[in-house]
Every structure is written in structure tokens, then in C-alpha cells.
């Protein structure tokens, strides 16, 4: 029993640390544009992010967590030696954490998701056996890492083109923006709510029929769109600022929309990335408390809350600084462009979360930004960095795997 407490304790500490890192770094991607465009103050952004990250983690984080927990390693092979899975999951957390630390110190853009999946595959394939890995599922996940940025890019391209066509190219873009932005708000809110209700709520014990889900999503989205329209109506043009930049008031209208998509992005991020931290923890807890690998055991809600809480702590401690830094660097992502990127990324991510596929939220967002760029929306994208992201992507998987293998054998040798 003591040993099991040690395992759970270790896994909780590692998991919490991962969650903290995710909160400190990645959340900035969702909120920085809103802060940069002055749609939200930093304090408001942190509050919004905290609420939606937490909600995303707890309400919609279950599917991906369950994939990390038992979708990659074939648990049946380990029924005689459940402690191996415990060592492996601990090793994976430590490996991913170490790799992220090393990589970010060297300035390499690596993804938390890629590190943790690489690590789990690594320990399972080498520490246990090639056949212990569910290669079919792993294949799907890796495919989704290509598909998700691509999908987000295409959606973002289409959304931004529609913004150009419906609003920007016209002679009175402000009037057009006032008319169409509430529609975008509705669409954003509708997509987010619908996927959450359909895919997420069963984890909290709510059973809702598909029909009810659609009705509820429409109702909530209409409500949010009405609130948005209220704020949009309050926006009045500032003739002095207009002289320098004719689109400044239009962008202020889009900033309202951006607040909604930022919430969606935070929610989506929480729903997908929380699993990186707590998926392994959930696996350890499952084994340590029952002594066996019970594939059916459900995910305790407090684990999701721990993950969500860790993200919020990371956000509160370091997030402020990162949001400010990132916000200054992404001024090209004005609200009209930023919302298109965020809505596309958030939709893609939430769908992945609903299907239980761990994807890189940052890569998806980068794909979305490139999509806006393809629609001639971004002044300058540095293709060198895009290449580096791709290279880091390829390097991260073996790196995570090798580290996990080392830690795995160390744990097996030294842990009780």
C-alpha cells in the first residue's frame, strides 16, 4: 500500500508540474491576441482563460485523457505485471517534462502532446514489447497531427475569405461588421457549445439527446450573440484614430468577437491538453488503487480538476508574463484575423477532443494562422520558423521516446 501511495504521489506531482507548464506557456496562445488588441486587459484575460481552461479540462477533457491513459498501450498484455505500466507512465511524464524543458531552453518549438505520446510509445515498445503498442491507434494519432493543422488552416482560410468578402472589401465596412459579426459570434458559440454538449457532458453524468443538444446549443449561442450585439452597438467611431487607420473601429467590433473565440480557444485547449498532464496520472491511479489494470474503471473527476487546477496555477503564476510578451509579438494578428485563426483552431481542437485524439493545440493554431496568411491576411510569416516547427515535430517523438525508455528502466531498477 505504501508503494502505491508513493506512485500516486509521484504521478500527481509530475502531472501537476506538467499542467503548470501547459498553463504557463500554451494558454498565452489563446489569450495573447485579445490582450494585444486591447479587447481584454491582462487581468480579464487571465480570469477568462482560467474559467474556460478549467471548464474545458473538466467538461471535455475526458476522452483524450482516456486515450493517453489506455488507448496507446495495450493493457491486456500487462495484466500480470501492472507495475510496469506504472513505471512507464511515470517515466513518460518525466521524459516529456524533461524534453520540454531542454527544448524550450534551446528555443526549439516543441509540442507537449508530441512529447508525451512519443514517450508513452517509446517505453511501451522498448520496455514492454513492440506488440504492446496499439499501432493502429498511434497511427491515427500521428495522422491527426498532420490533418489537424491542415484542417484548421483550410477552415481559417475560408472564414477569413468570408470576412473579406462580406465586410472588408465594402465601402462601409463598419456597418457591414455590425451586421455580420454577431453572426460569427453565433457560429463560434454554437460550434463550441454543441461539441461540448455532444461529447463532453456525459463525463459529468448528464445525458442529453442529440436533438436536445442542438436546441440547447442554438439557445446558448443566440444568447451569446445577443450579448455580443449589445457590446457592438456601444462601439462608436473615433474620428481622430480613424484618420490614421480607417479600419480601427471595424477592428474594435471584431475585438468583441475575438473575446468569444478566445474563450473557445481556452476551452478547446483545456479539453485537449489537460490529458497530457493527467492521462498518465489517471493510469497510475487506476492501477495503484485497484491493483489491476481495469480497462473499464472510470476516470475520477478530481483528477480532471487537478489538471485543470494545475493549468490555472501555471496561468496565474507565469501566464501573465507570457501573455504580455506574446501579445506584443503578434500584433499582425488583428481581431479580424485573429478570430478567424482562433475559431478555426478551436473548432478543430474541440472536435479532436470529442473524438479522444490528442493533438498539438499550438500546431493547430499555427496551421490556422497560415490559413489566414494564404488568404493574404498576414503581412509577413517567417517560413524558416514554420520549417523549424516541422523539424522539431519530427525530432520530438524519438527524443521523448528515448528519454522515457531511460527513465523506465531506471524506475524499474530502483522503485519498489
Amino acid at each position, binding site marked *: 500500500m505504501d508503494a502505491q501511495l508513493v506512485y500516486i504521489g509521484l504521478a500527481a506531482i509530475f502531472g501537476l508540474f506538467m499542467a503548470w507548464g501547459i498553463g504557463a506557456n500554451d494558454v498565452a496562445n489563446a489569450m495573447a491576441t485579445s490582450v494585444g488588441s486591447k479587447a481584454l486587459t491582462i487581468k480579464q484575460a487571465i480570469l477568462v482563460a482560467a474559467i474556460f481552461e478549467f471548464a474545458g479540462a473538466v467538461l471535455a477533457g475526458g476522452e483524450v485523457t482516456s486515450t493517453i491513459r489506455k488507448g496507446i498501450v495495450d493493457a491486456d498484455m500487462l495484466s500480470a505485471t501492472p507495475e510496469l505500466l506504472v513505471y512507464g507512465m511515470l517515466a513518460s511524464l518525466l521524459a516529456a517534462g524533461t524534453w520540454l524543458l531542454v527544448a524550450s531552453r534551446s528555443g526549439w*518549438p516543441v509540442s507537449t502532446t508530441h512529447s508525451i505520446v512519443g514517450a508513452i510509445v517509446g517505453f511501451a515498445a522498448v520496455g514492454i514489447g513492440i506488440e504492446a503498442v496499439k499501432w493502429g491507434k498511434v497511427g491515427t494519432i500521428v495522422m491527426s497531427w498532420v490533418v489537424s493543422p491542415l484542417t484548421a488552416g483550410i477552415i481559417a482560410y475560408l472564414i477569413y475569405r468570408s470576412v473579406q468578402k462580406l465586410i472588408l472589401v465594402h465601402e462601409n465596412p463598419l456597418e457591414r461588421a455590425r451586421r455580420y459579426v454577431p453572426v460569427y459570434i453565433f457560429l463560434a458559440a454554437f460550434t463550441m457549445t454543441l461539441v461540448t454538449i455532444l461529447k463532453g457532458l456525459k463525463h459529468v453524468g448528464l445525458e442529453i439527446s442529440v436533438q436536445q443538444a442542438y436546441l440547447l446549443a442554438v439557445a446558448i449561442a443566440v444568447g451569446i450573440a445577443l450579448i455580443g450585439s449589445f457590446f457592438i452597438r456601444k462601439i462608436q467611431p473615433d474620428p481622430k484614430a480613424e484618420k490614421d487607420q480607417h479600419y480601427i473601429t471595424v477592428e474594435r467590433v471584431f475585438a468583441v468577437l475575438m473575446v468569444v473565440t478566445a474563450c473557445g480557444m481556452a476551452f478547446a485547449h483545456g479539453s485537449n491538453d489537460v490529458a497530457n498532464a493527467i492521462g498518465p496520472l489517471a493510469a497510475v491511479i487506476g492501477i495503484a488503487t485497484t491493483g489491476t489494470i481495469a480497462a473499464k474503471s472510470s476516470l475520477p473527476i478530481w483528477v480532471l480538476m487537478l489538471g485543470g487546477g494545475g493549468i490555472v496555477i501555471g496561468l496565474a503564476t507565469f501566464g501573465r508574463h507570457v501573455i504580455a510578451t506574446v501579445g506584443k509579438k*503578434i*500584433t499582425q494578428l488583428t481581431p479580424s484575423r485573429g478570430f478567424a485563426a482562433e475559431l478555426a483552431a478551436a473548432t478543430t481542437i474541440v472536435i479532436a477532443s470529442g473524438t479522444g485524439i490528442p493533438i498539438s493545440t499550438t500546431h493547430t493554431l*499555427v496551421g490556422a494562422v497560415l490559413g489566414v496568411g494564404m488568404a493574404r491576411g498576414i503581412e509577413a510569416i*517567417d517560413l524558416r520558423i514554420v520549417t523549424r516547427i516541422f523539424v522539431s515535430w519530427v525530432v520530438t517523438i524519438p527524443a521523448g521516446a528515448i528519454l522515457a525508455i531511460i527513465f523506465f528502466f531506471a524506475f524499474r531498477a530502483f522503485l519498489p
Partner: protein
Amino acid sequence: MANMLANIFGSSPVEPLEKHIDIVYRCAKSLRPFFAAVIEGDETRMAECRSQIEALENEADDLKKKIRTHMPKSLFMPVPREDLLGLLLVQDKIANRAKDVSGVVIGRNMRIPEPIAEEFRDFVESNIDAAKQARKSVRELDELFTVGFKGAEVDLISELIEELDQMETETDKKQTEIRSALFKIEKTLDPVDAVFLYEVIQLVGEISDMAERVGRRLELLLS
């Protein structure tokens, strides 16, 4: 910590280009007090204006170099990099001409002959106006990038460029007129002075030529 999202953005060329034309225009505008001093024969004032023109031309030059180094080949932009660099180059030439002409005048300690002084002042004004119109057009760049090079904004810039073309034609006309006015009095002048006056007129006129070429370059971005 490296942030992927922040790093994929290269530095936008738009604001620096607008800043560059701003400096260039201020440089060209300084020809107004400069030639006023030349006409009055105020040598100290001439020197002051000349150093101001030089300083602004240097500033434009530095910014030009900075923009170039921040525009590597790996940048993915909505318009070809070459077109933006071409625009930058002709913008810079406006400042170059202002510097050149003030250099010739200072170097030979020239004066504008009384009979053509008023006409010459007017000719300088027209060229400065053309530079101003070029600045006005380039200042629409950020809006152009915002809307994705389509729609009402494109029409607006096309109009500005058309006005710019008309202004250039106007200064061309003035240039011919002032040349014939100079021709009428050239016998009364020192021959070398006369030759250099033609040179000065030519250089001043090139400011509106360059301004017009800024318009041409902008037009390329629209297509």
C-alpha cells in the same frame, strides 16, 4: 521560453515603409525653406536647410537598409517581396534627388535669377505636392493589407494614384515653362550658371517623376 505562435510572425514591412515615405516627404519638403533662402541669398539659412536635408536623407537611407535586412527571402507575404523592395527603392530616390539638388546649389553657391524666381518657387511647390501625394498613397498600405488587396480600398488608392499622375503631368508642364523662361534670360547670365540652372530644374523635376514611380509601384501591388 520559445513561443511558436509569436515566432512565426516576421516583422511586418508595412509600418516601416510608411515611416520611410514620411521621412522622405519631410526631406523633400525641406526644399521649400532651402530655396526660399537661395532666392533671398541667405547663406547661413541655406547651410542650415542643407544639413537638415542631409540628415533626413541619411535617416531614410538607414531605414531603407533596416527594412531590407528585415525582409529575408524566407518571408511569406501577401505581395511579392521584390515589389515591396522596388517601392522602397523609388521612395528613397525622392530623398536622394532632394539631397542631390541641394548639393549642387550649395556646392556652386547658386542663386535663382529674379525674373524666374516666382515661377521657380511654384515649380518647387508642385514637386513637393507630388511627394506629399506619394506619401498619402503609401500611407494607405496598411489598409490595403488589412482588406487583402481587394474592394473599395483598392479603388481609393487607384484614385490617389490617378491624382498623383495628374500632378506629375502638371509639374512636367511647369518644367517646360520654366525652362523656356530661363531660355529667354540665359544670355544675361553667366553661361556656366545657366547650364547648372537647367540642371537644378531637371533634378527638382525628378522629385515628381520619382513620386509618380511610387504610384506605379503601388499599382503593381494592386494587380
